[in-house]
């Protein structure tokens, strides 16, 4: 009997100690342990409080612009000549990505907990922008840690965060990208335990973060489910989303995990190719280890030293993945594929030209595999691709990669 057959539900995790199968947990320094327990308690209370949900819903409607449309990509579908491709348009959210869904949840929680200073790590800068935005809205102090390499390649977002009143700390330790930003944010949190709330930007980190971020992002899948039922009178046949830490993907996937008829695909960043060793595909090219508070698949050497990830997309450039994805991978419920830098650049251009939608480089990774899968499916196959961010932040770096062409 496979693990998959033995499970009644894929939606009940994590257990009370924060584990999804063998993954997850709370591997943090003692200084942070009491804070994480406090957070777990505060989140459980908020979750049970209808007023919390009402407040979040009101912000979704009037501030973020939810629900985001489920858009039938007619020309892309015709171009591919297979499945009907729908795009879940979270790129239309205020601040331009799915990140705000999670941030609003966490910031409302931080307020309930009486925290006055918010810290965040960011890669592409989308989570940083979303956090800076919510902090501006609620008058909270905001400090964003960002790898020095990412500060350079995501300049528009650095400027946006500054406009919004956030303090940006370029991180020059280690590989100077997302994992190092997360290390620095954790060091800040250890130091400023009394007033500070750490707003993690993806479904990773110690319990309860992976669960909490997933819950806040699940609005994507809940809406998509209703919208598809309304449009087509039935569930989709497949879902496709890109994976950095995995928050947009788990947000889309989670409400569908127990619908056995739905094929689910996560797409990691293959950089120069998984075989090259220069990639960010932790499931396809890594193995289980412990980093940033949880056990999950990681890129590392034979001695357990964490390797640098490589991706054209700053938002996917992380050597780990959320623990729930590690578990969904091992159970076989979700299939994890990967997309190279060049394939993502092609998909970036394809969607721009066919649909008039410039995607962020992150979901361009999902588009690349979606197009390939859709081509092999019949015309009545319904596919949803999570278009989790828009490409404004990427136009300068894409122009550089495309040389004169852009």
């Amino acid at each position: 009997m496979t693990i998959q057959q033995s499970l009644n539900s894929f939606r009940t995790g994590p257990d009370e100690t924060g584990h999804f199968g063998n993954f997850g947990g709370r591997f943090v320094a003692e200084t942070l342990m009491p804070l994480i327990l406090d957070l777990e308690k505060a989140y459980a209370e908020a979750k049970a409080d209808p007023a919390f949900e009402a407040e979040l819903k009101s912000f979704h409607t009037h501030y973020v612009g939810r629900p985001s449309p489920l858009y039938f990509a007619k020309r892309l579908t015709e171009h591919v000549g297979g499945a009907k491709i729908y795009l879940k348009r979270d790129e239309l959210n205020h601040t331009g990505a799915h990140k705000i869904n999670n941030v609003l949840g966490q910031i409302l929680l931080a307020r309930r907990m009486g925290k006055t200073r918010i810290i965040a790590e960011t890669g592409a800068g989308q989570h940083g922008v979303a956090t800076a935005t919510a902090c501006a809205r609620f008058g909270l102090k905001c400090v964003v840690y960002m790898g020095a390499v990412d500060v350079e390649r995501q300049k528009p977002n650095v400027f946006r965060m500054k406009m919004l009143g956030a303090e940006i700390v370029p991180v020059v330790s280690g590989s100077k990208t997302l994992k190092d930003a997360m290390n620095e944010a954790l060091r800040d949190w250890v130091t400023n335990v009394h007033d500070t709330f750490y707003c993690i930007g993806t479904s990773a980190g110690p319990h309860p973060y992976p669960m909490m971020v997933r819950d806040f992002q699940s609005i994507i899948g809940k809406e998509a489910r209703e919208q598809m039922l309304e449009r087509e009178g039935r569930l989709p046949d497949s879902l496709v989303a890109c994976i950095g830490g995995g928050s947009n993907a788990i947000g889309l996937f989670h409400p569908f995990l127990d619908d056995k008829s739905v094929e689910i695909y996560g797409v990691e960043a293959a950089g120069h190719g998984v075989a090259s060793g220069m990639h960010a595909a932790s499931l396809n090219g890594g193995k289980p280890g412990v980093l940033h508070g949880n056990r999950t698949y990681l890129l590392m050497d034979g001695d357990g030293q964490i390797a640098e990830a490589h991706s054209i997309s700053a938002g996917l450039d992380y050597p780990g993945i959320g623990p729930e994805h590690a578990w969904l991978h091992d159970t076989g419920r979700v299939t994890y594929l990967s997309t190279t830098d060049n394939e993502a650049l092609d998909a970036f251009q394809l969607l721009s030209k066919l649909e008039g939608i410039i995607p962020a480089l992150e979901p361009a990774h999902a588009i690349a595999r979606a197009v390939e899968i859709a081509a092999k499916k019949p015309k009545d196959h319904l596919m949803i691709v999570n278009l989790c961010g828009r490409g404004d932040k990427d136009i300068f770096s894409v122009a550089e990669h495309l040389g004169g062409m852009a």
Partner: protein
Amino acid sequence: MTTRIDTRFAALKKEGRAALVTFYMGGDPDPETSLKVIKALPKAGADLIEIGMAFTDPMADGPTIQAAGLRALSKGITLEKTLHLVREFRKDDNETPIILMGYFNPIFIYGVEKFLADAKSSGVDGLIVVDCPPEEDDELCKPALKAGLNFIRLATPTTDEKRLPKVLQNTSGFVYYVSIAGITGAARPDPQKVAASVARIKAHTTLPVTVGFGVRTAADAAEIAKTADGVVVGSALVEAVRQSLHADGRPTELTMGAVTSIVEDIAKGVRSVKK
């Protein structure tokens, strides 16, 4: 089970003074030099030695120890080679307790059971693994105790009265009180607050309580030695070594002296307090 750690603390208690615990990064600035440094520590006045297991992503460490780990890694240190340092040290010192300190991932990848067996046979006495709180005791703490190693837990300013028993439950050897909420090598501890915290911990345990994070000078050490059973010095040592290096990271003729002089100085501070 009695380890070298238990024996050493019992002896110091008789002597009527606190212990000086020195932290040094294994493999910094290169494996041979680090072995020389570690071998020189007891004579300079170290009573217990913590050897850092280098890790790329040390989330509780400040820039000084982060950099030391990266220097060591760039010169090829591995967990296997760190254990080798201990075996070499043990060739002419079978008394000074050795504690390995670091993060869980390299141990997890080495294999927990194999690591514990190899550590024990290499002459390691205890472990401090920063990212293994009591909530994850099944992972490493309990297997370590079973393998005959001490598992030394960190208690911190955020560990309140209610949580303290949980932190102390499977702790052995000694308790390491982290004197500040923060990373290594950052803020200086407030001696009065530290004294109160040590007293609070002692009300819950008969284990020796040592205090570390932010201790730099003989005066700091003396102040803390009044209340604690041991004083831990790390970043100050590592920094002294770094300052002695060539620009390209190679040791100079000043390197050994830089370590021994600071340890001798701080040891004087610790030993000036009679209890």
